[in-house]
């Protein structure tokens, strides 16, 4: 585990994730065909793979934006067995553990940056407004946007928007952070500022799952790299192994393609 700065440690205990036999198809198109995944608490897992390999779908299944047809997911003490069917209240309970950062940030355009952060904690979690606001201002400061609290998303640059998106996820006090290609929609010059925030979060010892094409980020920050291809995990392991010395031919081919750009 990485050494982390005191005072930056998250208030919430990071949790681990266990996925077994996850199956998801859209109509007759299979996307995930039996995925097993283990994520240890406080570690960073990076998921890479060609488009259509199912990495975003897998991430979205963990947050229940997609409902798998079979398999089970456990986060902390909450578990859903999708083969048996989802019972009432189970999804909300599992979803509580995680927060999602989207590729296209999906900030609420009619709310200021600060209001975007406060929305979930105040109106979904029912926490006291004053306490939430204080914490939200702190989070905006952490992502370097203290002075943008009252700006609307459209008044911010792409990188700033995504940093607000990360702060909004943190405001939910999640035990697991999910990132779905957080830098793919950004201008090249703003990618760095978003990755810097993510590095800080990783250094705090948070549980993070990141879908990305940023191989350097994976190499520097990940504890575990997962290579998905054709709806299954084709190879996984420490970044040195998967990225620098891949055992599978298709991993080598994929890395060769993205590194040549």
């Amino acid at each position, binding site marked *: 585990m990485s050494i982390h700065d005191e005072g930056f440690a998250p208030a919430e205990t990071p949790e681990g994730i266990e996925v077994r036999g996850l199956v998801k198809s859209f109509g007759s198109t299979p996307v995930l065909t039996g995925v097993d995944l283990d994520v240890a608490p406080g570690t960073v897992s990076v998921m890479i793979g060609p488009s259509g390999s199912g990495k975003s779908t897998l991430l979205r299944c963990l947050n229940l*934006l997609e409902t798998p047809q079979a398999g089970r997911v456990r986060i902390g003490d909450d578990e859903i067995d999708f083969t048996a069917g989802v019972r009432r209240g189970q999804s909300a309970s599992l979803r509580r553990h995680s927060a999602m950062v989207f590729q296209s940030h*999906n900030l609420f355009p009619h709310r200021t940056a600060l209001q975007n952060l406060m929305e*979930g904690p105040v109106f979904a979690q029912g926490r006291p407004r004053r306490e939430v606001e204080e914490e939200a201002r702190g989070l905006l400061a952490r992502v370097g946007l203290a002075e943008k609290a009252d700006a609307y998303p459209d008044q911010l640059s792409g990188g700033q928007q995504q940093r607000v998106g990360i702060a909004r996820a943190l405001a939910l006090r999640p035990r697991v952070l999910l990132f779905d290609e957080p830098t793919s929609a950004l201008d090249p010059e703003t990618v760095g500022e978003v990755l810097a925030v993510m590095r800080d979060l990783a250094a705090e010892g948070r549980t993070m799952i990141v879908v990305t094409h940023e191989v350097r980020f994976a190499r520097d920050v990940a504890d575990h790299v997962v290579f998905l291809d054709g709806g299954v995990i084709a190879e996984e392991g420490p970044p040195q192994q998967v990225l620098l010395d891949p055992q599978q031919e298709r991993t080598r081919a994929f890395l060769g393609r993205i590194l040549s750009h």
Partner: protein
Amino acid sequence: MDLDLVRESIGPLLSGTIRGTIPLTAASFVGGMVLAVLVALARLSRVGVVRWIAQGYVSIIRGTPLLVQLFIIFYALPSLGLTIDPFPSAIIAFSLNVGGYASEIVRAAILSIPRGQWEAAETIGYSRTMALRRVILPQAARVAVPPLSNTFISLVKDTSLASTILVTELLRKAQEIAAPTFEFLTLYSLAAVIYWVLCLVLSIGQGFLERRLGRHLQPQIAKVEKVRQATA
């Protein structure tokens, strides 16, 4: 034009406007909007029967003349044993009519909000209802203001049809004064001017509402305002 007649009739005409046209329009629009949101949600429902009922309602309202709807409620319902006074009859007919048309506007506005907004609302822990109330409808409202303003402005003028079921609104007042004096030109022109002024006020209100609901959509203007405030 007879100026004395103008002076004499302006009072009764304004009274017809203030006691007839304006409350009739306001009540019907409010009733219609409540109906419109419910019908729009019903049309987006996952339950087939709910969708069909809503669709049938919209189809009937849009497929029949407003005057016929008004006559059915006022003249035809009594033969089924249901007699309603002119003013409430008009409010019911106009509300039903506005509800049918505006529900399509509200539905389109809701559908225009990107799916990512629903997803973001879901991931911060909102139920579908909460997502709708706090995330989707506020944004849809901005989209719906211009077309709904059209509906509102049409309604102001459509309320003149209530004169046919004996509601003393603006047009009926004009008719009452014009009939014995044969001063049709003066009276109907005056009525036209009053309708036009009402609609003008509403158009100005529309502009104001669009700016207010669209604060977040005008970053440049907002920035300029901020700089202006800071330097003032």
